[in-house]
């Protein structure tokens, strides 16, 4: 395949949509630092450009190579997660490891590794096996091991996203409906057990979520302030750099987990809906690619990645609007934070490679 052909087949519309989000993100971060490219907005834009270049590079990698390596990726991810538990850093939690001065959160790319490994597993199983539950058990193991390790860090938000991303692949692979509902019931039954595993601050977050007014200055502070900021934004917002909640520092973590709130305060309902639509478009665009590619591996991978991006957005927005407890989840491409952005761009790169090197396209 010629370079020209490859460039032609790259899903540029994905990059365009991503570019819009990065632009919105940079503006929000510019506002978050009271009208300055320092310290966040400038670096955010630069990272995004590097990320987009990465997508193009990944498009040149043969997709069959990615398929061959998928178990290796999973093994590597698990090893790094293990390393985090041993040598990780963070305040009372170990989520990050430092590589050459850069903090890196391995639980993010682990999501991709799980999706690839699951896609590989299902694509290599003869179709008739897919009726028996036994053949789904290895798939659940692929999800469960990294899930448990991330819960242990503890990082409930990322762990749940990894779980959903993995389950979506299992679901798409054709898990019979009776098992789908059976598993749902099992999950509901496991909730009390999970509750016992939670750390005190995590329990506090859940309790606060259920009743935020009980502790307005403590654990409920973030969510209360976030709702005030969003709600006071109104339909068109208070205007760029004019959000008093954010500018006066009432809103915590406004450059990371609560960036959506800040955009809501300054650009209102219209600005927020715009972001939601862009995310939905990205998800649907990737799902559409999954319908077009030929191999089962490519299909499952694309569905997984598309839904992963969606879950990122959903968990974050649901959290800042008070629909979910504050679990600590970034809004990728908009939030300041390299690892989630990198993960999303690598995901796009894999999708690009899938469509570029698809048999049916040539």
């Amino acid at each position: 395949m010629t370079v020209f052909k490859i460039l032609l087949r790259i899903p540029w519309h994905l990059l365009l949509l991503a570019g819009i989000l990065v632009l919105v993100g940079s503006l929000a971060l510019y506002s978050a630092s009271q009208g300055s490219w320092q310290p966040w907005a400038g670096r955010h834009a630069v990272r995004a450009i590097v990320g987009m270049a990465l997508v193009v590079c990944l498009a040149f990698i043969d997709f069959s190579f990615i398929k061959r390596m998928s178990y290796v990726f999973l093994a590597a991810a698990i090893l790094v997660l293990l390393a985090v538990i041993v040598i990780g850093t963070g305040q009372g939690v170990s989520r990050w490891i430092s590589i050459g001065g850069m903090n890196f959160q391995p639980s993010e790319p682990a999501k991709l590794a799980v999706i690839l490994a699951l896609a590989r597993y299902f694509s290599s199983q003869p179709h008739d096996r897919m009726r028996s539950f036994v053949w789904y058990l290895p798939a659940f193991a692929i999800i469960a091991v990294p899930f448990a390790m991330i819960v242990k860090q503890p990082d409930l938000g990322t762990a749940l996203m990894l779980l959903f991303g993995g389950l979506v692949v299992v679901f798409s692979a054709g898990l019979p409906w009776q098992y789908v509902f059976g598993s749902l019931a099992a999950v509901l039954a496991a909730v009390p057990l999970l509750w016992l595993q939670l750390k005190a601050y995590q329990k506090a977050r859940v309790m606060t979520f259920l009743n935020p007014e009980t502790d307005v200055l403590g654990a409920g502070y973030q969510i209360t302030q976030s709702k005030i900021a969003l709600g006071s934004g109104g339909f068109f917002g208070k205007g760029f750099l004019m959000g008093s909640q954010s500018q006066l520092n009432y809103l915590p973590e406004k450059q990371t987990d609560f960036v959506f709130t800040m955009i809501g305060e300054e650009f209102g309902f219209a600005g927020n809906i715009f972001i939601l639509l862009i995310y939905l478009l990205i998800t649907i665009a990737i799902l559409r690619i999954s319908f077009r590619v030929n191999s089962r591996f490519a299909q499952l991978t694309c569905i997984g990645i598309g839904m992963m991006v969606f879950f990122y957005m959903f968990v974050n927005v649901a959290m800042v609007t008070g629909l979910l407890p504050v679990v600590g989840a970034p809004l990728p491409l908009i939030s300041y934070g390299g690892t989630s952005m990198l993960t999303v761009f690598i995901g796009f790169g894999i999708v690009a490679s899938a469509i570029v090197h698809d048999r049916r396209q040539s």
Partner: protein
Amino acid sequence: MFRAKTKDLRRTMTRRGLLLAGGSALLTSILGARLFQLQVAQNNRYQRLSDRNQFDVRIVAPTRGRLFDRKMRLLAGNAESFELYITPLYVDDLQQTLAALGQIVELTERDIKAVLLAARKGPSFRDIIVRNDLSQRELARLAVRSPLFGGISFGKSLRRIYPQGSLACHITGYVSPVTAREIERNQSLEKTPYLGTGKVGVEFAHEDYLRGLPGRERIEVNAKGQPIRVLRDVDAMSGKDLQLSIDVEVQLQAAEILRRGQLTPVELGTMQVQRALAKNSELRAHIALGDDLVLRDAKDRLVPPESGAVVVMDIHSGEVISLVSAPMFDPNLFTGTLLTRDWRRLNSHPRTPLLNRATSGQYAPGSTFKMVVGLAAIEAGVISKNTQFNCSGDMELGNATFHCWRKGGHGMMNITSALEQSCDVFIYKVALKTGIRKIKDMAHRLGLGDVTGIGLPGEKQGIIPSHEWKLANQGRVWTPGETVVSSIGQGYVLATPLQLAVMTARIANGKEAVTPRLVKSIGDPVSDFAPLDVDPYALAIIREGMLEVMNSGLGTARNYDLDKSLGGMAGKTGTVQVKRITKAQREEGIVNNIDRPWAERDHALFVAFAPVKRPRYAISVVVEHGGSGSSTAAPVARDILTQLMLKQG
């Protein structure tokens, strides 16, 4: 066939992919609906909340109530103290500014971290406290350089001070910053910049009365976060003042007399003393606490002041006029930031200065317990005033021999002469006839074995043993030998110096079960005490015996009576063995107290009431390892009462 199956699978996947796409769209519209609800439907409500956020609420600390002595002299007050604040809004680089400030005032790593955390959490226009309790020097240095620092400001607040220093430390207790534990129990403490909360003593016991209620002011800020004006919402309500029954002057004299004991003060400056200090770790620990009293004992050795307790109380009103526990500590150490160095010194001090010996120190009462036995026996009709028993110097009971303190014995004794000469054998015999149950009952009526209810935290109740007590605590039955040992206030029996003072006050009062109190009664002392319910005839005999202790030619404290012109006193000595005397030691001859290590010497106790004719005061003295009750503790009581009576005129 195979192809068809694969196609099926593919169709399933496509169907499910479409389902997921639909699901995503559905979830997105839920989010959209939620945003609509918050941003459009409830916009007005949140707009109002956001406006309210433009007011910052600041809590104003109330002034804590002061503590006075019975003549309105200040025991605990509030002094102005200065704090350094920083406003992140006006600071370019907070970290750098803090580092620069650290060059001028003392800032710990923890202070800096706390400021950075507060800056991250709160709105940027809110002042954050950097340091409290700035010294005059720091204040001057900062004032000169303040133009160099944008965003710093000074605040004035109150700090608790104890102008009498260590003198009333165990009575007032102290106030110190609110702890995490207290916040757990009382959430409202968290956001309130109180002076601190009482941790021990009256400061703790009357915390709610003294604390007051915080006020609130609102600071209006513009959209840029600059304060425009301050609105006072709620005025702070000061805590109420409290007048205590303590007399600082008596307290001072009592502390000095107790601490000096029978020792001679030395000049600290001389080379010889300095050399001796270098070798003596206990003395160094004592001096490190800021106490410069060093004394010389009869063997010419340098020693720290005596430790122990003195309680002086009014036998009618129950008011405690002096309550000394030595060694003492300076409560001012706790009010600001307690230095680890000071905390270590207080805790590693061999004589535990933080312990209030008067209410929480439990001592065997020794012979001062003999009054209890005597009263129980007379009341029960076991003996009368003239019932006599012979003291041959010891008493056989089963296989055991119980000795009298006097080797040769006292000869024929009755209850008054037995008190006067503190004969042990007479009391042994009387106690065996009376039985521990009646003795215990009398002890409780006199205030022993129960907390007195003076209202100081951590008060101990002592131990008055009985059949039931021993079964419950040791799982064994009571033996007559234990009645014998208990009758002279040893064995299991324990009492606090305060309880001994209460016992003496009740014996002197005769009518009411006086209980001690620290808070001065307003107006005429109204007695609301329960009746004492002890046979007045028995009390008269016992008081006569206590009088003989001071006056008879053989009385154990005959050399230490309060001057007759001041009314004289009636008392009882107590010398308590700390270490059991073995048979071998008894035969070899007992080593003199002064030749034993300090911790093995006897405790010296003395209780008394004065004046004899119309009793007014009761006193109890415990000198830890002081030697003998007569020669060490009695003169302490006499000297304190002399000062007290002289002031009465």
